[in-house]
């Protein structure tokens, strides 16, 4: 508290007032949760203003929420415009499955490759050129090929997501291992730890925080890759909803799809952050 007062004095009058107010709010028991809600509120206000100025091509938040509520579990309207039976729930579940399975496969492959690159120069010489080539070619250019080879199934989408996750996690895992303080390894060796013991007890826990950074990056982008995969051809998925409602010129449903996906993505990110806190509570 004293710190805040001292800071308040040293800054400009505006900042001082902000500091005083945030202090008062905190004392009144107003937590960060409420501030987060205020942020979301602000977003809704801006959204409403966009609707006000742009008009029907930018549907109002309430119309979008009504649309989600009406079509969440099942939707005759969706069937009417040629979508498979089911509501937003079924479509977002399909996208989520693609993201989670693709991320899991990609993460395992990428982390394994990253560890191998960092720990063995032979492995690195084999993997690094591959990773460089695959990492620099935009993975999206592969999607038409994937569609030709695998059709509108889960496989091309899993490949898109898995591939990107693997490339990201390869880099993160390799850097994480390279950043492990060599003194830890030397110390462990003087305690009698052998190769695998060092890997399991030192390298893995020491690299975990950075791996979570990579997982978070990959997860964030995975939603985009999954949806783009679905846009190109799919039976279910938020991307499929967007293409179908797009042809019907139904902007409200398009935005509703994006909102549902956004909410699920935020929840997934929060779960990942919770998992990280749990596994690296020593930090």
């Amino acid at each position, binding site marked *: 508290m004293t710190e805040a007062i001292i800071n308040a004095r040293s800054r400009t009058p505006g900042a001082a007032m902000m500091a005083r107010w945030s202090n008062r709010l905190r004392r009144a028991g107003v937590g960060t949760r409420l501030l987060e809600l205020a942020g979301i509120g602000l977003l809704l206000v801006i959204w409403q203003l966009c609707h006000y100025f742009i008009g029907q091509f930018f549907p109002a938040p309430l119309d979008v929420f009504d649309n989600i509520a009406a079509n969440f579990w099942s939707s005759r309207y969706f069937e009417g415009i040629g979508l498979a039976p089911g509501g937003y729930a079924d479509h977002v579940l399909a996208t989520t499955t693609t993201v989670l399975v693709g991320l899991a496969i990609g993460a395992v492959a990428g982390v394994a490759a990253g560890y191998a690159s960092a720990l063995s120069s032979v492995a690195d010489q084999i993997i690094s050129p591959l990773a460089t080539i695959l990492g620099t070619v935009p993975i999206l250019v592969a999607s038409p090929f994937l569609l030709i080879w695998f059709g509108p199934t889960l496989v091309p989408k899993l490949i898109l997501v898995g591939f990107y996750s693997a490339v990201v996690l390869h880099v993160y895992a390799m850097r994480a291992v390279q950043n492990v*303080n060599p*003194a830890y390894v030397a110390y462990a060796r003087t*305690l009698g730890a052998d190769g695998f013991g060092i890997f399991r007890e030192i390298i893995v826990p020491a690299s*975990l925080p950075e791996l979570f950074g990579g997982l978070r990056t990959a997860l964030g982008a995975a939603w985009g890759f999954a949806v783009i995969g679905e846009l190109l051809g799919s039976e279910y998925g938020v991307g499929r909803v967007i293409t179908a409602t797009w042809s019907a010129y139904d902007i409200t449903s398009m935005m509703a799809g994006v909102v549902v996906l956004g909410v699920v993505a935020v929840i997934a990110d929060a779960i990942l952050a919770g998992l990280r806190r749990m596994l*690296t509570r*020593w*930090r």
Partner: protein
Amino acid sequence: MEKLIEIHKASCRFDHASGRVVHALNEIDLTIGRGEFVCLLGRSGHGKSTLLRSLAGLNPLTSGWIRVEGELVAGPSSQRGMVFQEDTVFPWMTVRENVEFGLKCQGLPAAERTQIARRWLAAVGLAAFENSWPKELSGGMRKRVAIAAAFAGGAPILLMDEPFGALDYVTRMDLQNLLLDLWQRTRTTIVFVTHDLEEALVLAERILVFSAGRVVEDMTIDLARPRNEEVRARAEAVAITRTILRRLEPNNDVLRVA
């Protein structure tokens, strides 16, 4: 005294990419007896840490050999514990898990490990912190954890590479006293690298002065214990200090660039 460590014509040279060749160790011949407390003293970059790391098996020699209890040192071993200057306490393990880690590597059952770890944590005054994470401790306390881990492993030799170098003066004195106390109780052989003359005078039974990769002075220190921070003022200590400083004078700093 029984010979524990024998060092024969130990040399170590580093060929740097720039073409510079550094003779970090230059044909060192040395024996260290069981139970000794030896300080390797010298200025930075004169080979004392290199020798210590070679003793640990972390740094291969270019020529010559080191034997411990008659066996050639070929790599690290739990028979030679080490305390580093850096903070090497593993942050992802609790204090007790840290002390147990070496015992785990030696394959001891969990119950026995815990018992030994608790005993050593009590010996360094950290009994109440066994379940704490290292981040919750101060730098001095983490050093205590490292010392407890080194002794808990039961190695007959402990190698210490400027372990207290990064600590404040008072904490350092506390830890020196703690280390002396543990040494007197266990009679573990300790090889301790320092560039701090006072630290060497407080701790050592024998001081080896390093210069340009050689041992230029081998002195037995028979100052009466307990020694404290005023040890340097004693008449015998003044004589020792004078000898050591003469050995460390800048004009004795042989050009080591070949």
